[in-house]
């Protein structure tokens, strides 16, 4: 039987991940349907009720992918309850009667290249170590460039003169990158689009509102799960700083961890699991860099973040930083979120006006 690969959605990272899997295995990789109400309905139907929301989205993605013909499913893991996702999801899908191969690529909290190599070798006998390394480096650069472009966009998108100009730019950028043959052409595309990005007309006041976006990783990176929070913020003409991205999670975090631990000594002695401690550090960082407020998101029932919230509250109170918390699950209503967000925006605006 022909093997068709699939993996859960994660914002725009579907493109570099898809490219990586194709390059490594030379097999067909399914374009998993974008997340919709149907995805989450399917996911919630077959998930344990109290599990965190990314599990439900992932499961919904898998079911939709299986229905479209996928038969090899990829899942990562690590950090928190995410560790158990793979096994539990595999069991649920098998109980539902699907026939598939299940592959977990980050099994024991850390990405192990040797393990990864053998996984891909199992799919593609002709994969050489050299090619494996080449593909990995390509993915590394792709993700890095994607995150960098995203960062440029986040600084500007709230002030665009022509609507959707940055959205169009990013779409074009991704399309070009998908066709890039090697790292050199990828780099060329990146610099070309960086230039284009800076040329797009914006109308940005000097003392615009700046907000830091912290919290759990899935609700930060998958825009469907945070109800397009960044887009709403942009419509309020706010500059956004988001810390969590794949670049950060895959390699930057390990570098920063000792520094962060030292800086948050006042608030925590130990790490809190996942990005809990990182978020405490971010509160201090945002204050130091003159940001106006903080938005924290998490799925309902996210254990590391629940542990972090009282510490975040204290840190924010001591630093006099306005902070707002959002908990997302499949029941969240768009209206309630927008009301709270709008009130937060008013709070920041009035505060800024009073400071003048």
């Amino acid at each position: 039987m022909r093997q068709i690969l699939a993996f859960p959605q994660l914002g725009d990272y579907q493109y570099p991940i898809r490219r990586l899997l194709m390059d490594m295995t030379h097999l067909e990789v399914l374009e998993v349907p974008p997340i919709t109400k149907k995805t989450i309905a399917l996911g919630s139907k077959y998930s344990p009720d109290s599990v965190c929301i990314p599990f439900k989205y992932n499961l919904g993605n898998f079911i939709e992918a299986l229905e479209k013909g996928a038969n090899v499913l990829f899942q990562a893991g690590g950090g928190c309850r995410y560790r158990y996702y793979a096994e539990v999801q595999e069991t649920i899908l098998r109980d539902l009667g699907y026939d598939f191969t299940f592959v977990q690529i980050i099994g024991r909290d850390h990405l192990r290249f040797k393990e990864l190599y053998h996984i891909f070798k199992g799919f593609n006998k002709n994969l050489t170590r050299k090619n494996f390394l080449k593909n990995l480096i390509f993915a590394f650069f792709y993700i890095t460039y994607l995150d960098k472009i995203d960062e440029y966009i986040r600084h500007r998108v709230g002030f665009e003169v022509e609507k959707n100009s940055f959205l169009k730019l990013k779409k074009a950028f991704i399309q070009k990158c998908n066709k890039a043959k090697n790292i050199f052409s990828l780099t060329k595309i990146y610099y070309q689009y960086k230039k284009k990005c800076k040329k797009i007309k914006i109308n940005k006041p000097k003392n615009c509102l700046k907000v830091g976006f912290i919290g759990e990783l899935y609700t930060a990176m998958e825009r469907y799960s945070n109800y397009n929070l960044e887009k709403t913020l942009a419509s309020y003409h706010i500059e956004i700083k988001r810390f969590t991205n794949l670049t950060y999670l895959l390699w930057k975090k390990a570098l920063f961890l000792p520094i962060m631990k030292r800086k948050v000594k006042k608030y925590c002695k130990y790490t809190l699991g996942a990005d809990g401690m990182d978020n405490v550090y971010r509160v201090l960082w945002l204050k130091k860099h003159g940001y106006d407020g903080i938005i924290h998101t998490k799925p309902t029932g996210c254990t590391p973040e629940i542990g972090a919230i009282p510490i975040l509250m204290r840190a924010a109170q001591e630093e006099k930083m306005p902070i707002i918390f959002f908990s997302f699950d499949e029941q969240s209503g768009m209206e309630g979120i927008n009301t709270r967000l709008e009130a937060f925006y008013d709070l920041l605006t009035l505060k800024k006006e009073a400071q003048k």
Partner: protein
Amino acid sequence: MKGYLGLDIGSISTKGVIIDEKKNILASSYLWTEGNPVQAVKKVLVELEEKIKDRKIKILGVGTTGSARKLIGTMLGACSIKNEITAHAIGTLSKYPTVKTILEIGGQDSKIILLEDGMVTDYAMNTLCAAGTGSFLSSQAKRLGIDVKDFGKIALSSKNPTSIAARCTVFAESDLVHKIQMGYEKKDIIAGLCYSVASNYLNNVAKGKKIKGPILFQGGVSKNIGVKKAFEDLLKTEVITDKNGHLMGALGSAILAKKNSKNEVFDFSLKDAIFETNGIECKGCENHCEVIVVKKDGKKIDAWGNRCEKGMIKI
């Protein structure tokens, strides 16, 4: 004379005020929404027009707040459509500039607003559960066979309030039935309900917030002296209620309308226009967004609810 109109269209009641340039309330109206915000607003407009018809007042701006703010704001061409939190804070500050905490319990939601030096510093709203809101109290009043207006008075007559598990509306109800069947006195149960609303609020909405005086208690439930007393007992400090406490949201949105006024005269005859709203399910993808289309006299004036361009409706 210049005037500004503020409307607060809540789930249970609809409030309207007209203010002058010095933020004094010239006329007000307060009636039930009864599941039909458009009709309720029309009635409010009729009442307000009647009250100011002898004085020559030009309405130069309309502001809306409350859960139907967008719909009504679109219909009336409002110059300010603001969330309840900001509207309440602004309205209250205009009367009590030194207020530090606003406790607000409405029909469907409850919120806490913390202020410092006339500025909102923090706020929270109930998220998942409606326990401890006005609709909970009114449904329990019905179960006990008394008018919700007498609730507070009866509660105060109790010396020994019963404790009622009020974590969740459904469980509170079963606990209530249990207490009735056990033979507790009605007034003790009613007083217990008032306490449970207050303690539920403090344990959920106000969790982790530093409540400092002066404290203002607003929203429909603030009319219930039983709940007010429960708050005072639990917080061990004075809690202020205003006779216009239910109008603060409307007042705030009128002030916002004044701030954002485009100096266009509002025409009361808008209340005679025929407004229609339809919910359309977008078939663009599997998400099936519900798009709301508002029509005035058969002509589309606005639409919202779509998450992407596919569901955009041309006006």
